[in-house]
């Protein structure tokens, strides 16, 4: 399998052939946005921008959950994690995300019980083993983590746990695509849709977006050949003036997506307005716990004081996340803002555009 499922999609000859095809058909510059930070990372890592013709410009989308989790929620997490009876659990990346005054790492350094988990089910296990503590999980993410977070709530319920809750910061991709396309400063002419979001959700949400905004949308995977193929298919459409939805990641994604996962998401979450860090509130762009699960909502459970979020005045991450600027245009990039000392969330996670540029393009 390895040959087919992995190295097959890294085959240098196949990649070069596809790049040549693109060179043959491209007649003018086009701007393509890859939604997902994982794809941004892959584009930088494999230097795909360098092997593609210069007419292809990537702008990097908001699909990095660590980057878009609102500053208010990070501050809330910091406050909850600082409480004495709490074990605060989170994916590792969130610990270094700057809050207004401190990050979760600092809470831990000051004696707070902050633990990194790999899966929300690990947080449920910690709750089982620590009945005298309040265990909170920082449930961030796009549609990819929602099935896991929803299942953790159902599992806590099935086990009768009274000490488990989640701080929900779920965001959804299609409303963000609409927001980007509706902006007067939009430059995006085609989307590479996030393959793993589509593994869960399918791509039945996209045809109306493609039709309304006359924009090609190609579902794309994460290997270099996947991304080049996604670019090829968008260029074919752009050159012909078409705007269809296509699936270039058929080994993982189907039109309807994972129905079982969608059903559980629907059982536990409902749509809400959501604030995105650096971008602002996008209507109906997130999920929150339904009323019947309110007991598992850390937001209800903890009386968190008024929060007055304060973003670094230098950070232009919001414009980067919407494709209006590139990391190089930030005066702090690589000087006072580095992965060791991030001023903004996009410098933290390897899927953040600033961190990906820092890691791969400074030494090119």
């Amino acid at each position, binding site marked *: 399998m390895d040959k087919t*499922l992995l190295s097959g*999609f890294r085959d240098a000859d196949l990649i070069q052939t596809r790049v040549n095809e693109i060179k043959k058909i491209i007649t003018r510059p086009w701007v393509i946005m890859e939604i997902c930070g994982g794809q941004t990372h892959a584009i930088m890592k494999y230097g795909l921008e360098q092997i593609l013709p210069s007419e292809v410009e990537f702008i990097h989308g908001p699909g990095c959950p660590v980057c878009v989790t609102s500053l208010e929620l990070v501050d809330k997490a910091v406050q909850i994690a600082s409480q004495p009876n709490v074990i605060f659990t989170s994916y590792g990346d969130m610990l270094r995300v700057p809050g207004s005054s401190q990050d979760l790492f600092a809470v831990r350094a000051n004696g707070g019980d902050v633990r990194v988990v790999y899966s929300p*089910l690990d947080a449920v296990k910690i709750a089982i083993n620590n009945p005298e503590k309040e265990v909170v999980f920082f449930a961030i993410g796009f549609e990819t983590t929602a099935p896991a977070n929803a299942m953790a709530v159902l599992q806590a319920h099935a086990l009768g746990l009274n000490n488990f809750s989640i701080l929900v910061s779920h965001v959804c991709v299609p409303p963000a695509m609409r927001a980007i396309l509706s902006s007067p400063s939009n430059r995006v002419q085609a989307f590479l849709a996030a393959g793993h979001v589509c593994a869960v959700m399918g791509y039945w949400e996209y045809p109306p977006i493609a039709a309304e905004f006359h924009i090609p949308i190609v579902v794309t995977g994460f290997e270099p050949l996947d991304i080049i193929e996604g670019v090829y298919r968008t260029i074919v459409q752009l050159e012909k003036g078409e705007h269809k939805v296509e699936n270039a990641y058929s080994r993982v994604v189907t039109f309807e997506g994972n129905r079982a996962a969608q059903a559980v998401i629907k059982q536990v979450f409902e749509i809400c307005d959501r604030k995105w860090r650096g971008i602002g509130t996008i209507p109906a762009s997130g999920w929150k716990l339904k009323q019947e699960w309110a007991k598992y909502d850390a937001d209800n459970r903890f009386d968190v004081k008024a929060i007055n979020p304060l973003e670094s005045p230098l950070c232009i991450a919001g414009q980067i996340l919407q494709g209006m600027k590139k990391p190089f245009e930030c005066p702090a990039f690589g000087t006072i803002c580095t992965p060791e000392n991030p001023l903004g969330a996009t410098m933290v996670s390897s899927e953040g555009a600033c961190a990906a540029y820092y890691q791969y393009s400074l030494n090119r």
Partner: protein
Amino acid sequence: MCLGVPGKIIEIYEVSGLKMGKIDFGGVTREACLEYVPEAQIGDYTLIHVGFALNLISEEEAKETLQLLNQIVEINEEMVQKD
């Protein structure tokens, strides 16, 4: 953190009412929840994300995609030879 990783299911069992499995990521094994892939069998390939299988990976589709791309290479090579 949003990246799913492909792996092979090498064991299936149940823990506290949840369908779980051992997943082999090219030598490293990890546990994952298989509730969302009820049809999964030992030997299937799956995409794992934050401890959950999001979908099964279709080897057939993977082969087909690669075959199509390989054909392009062959056509190009033929054209080069004719030139």
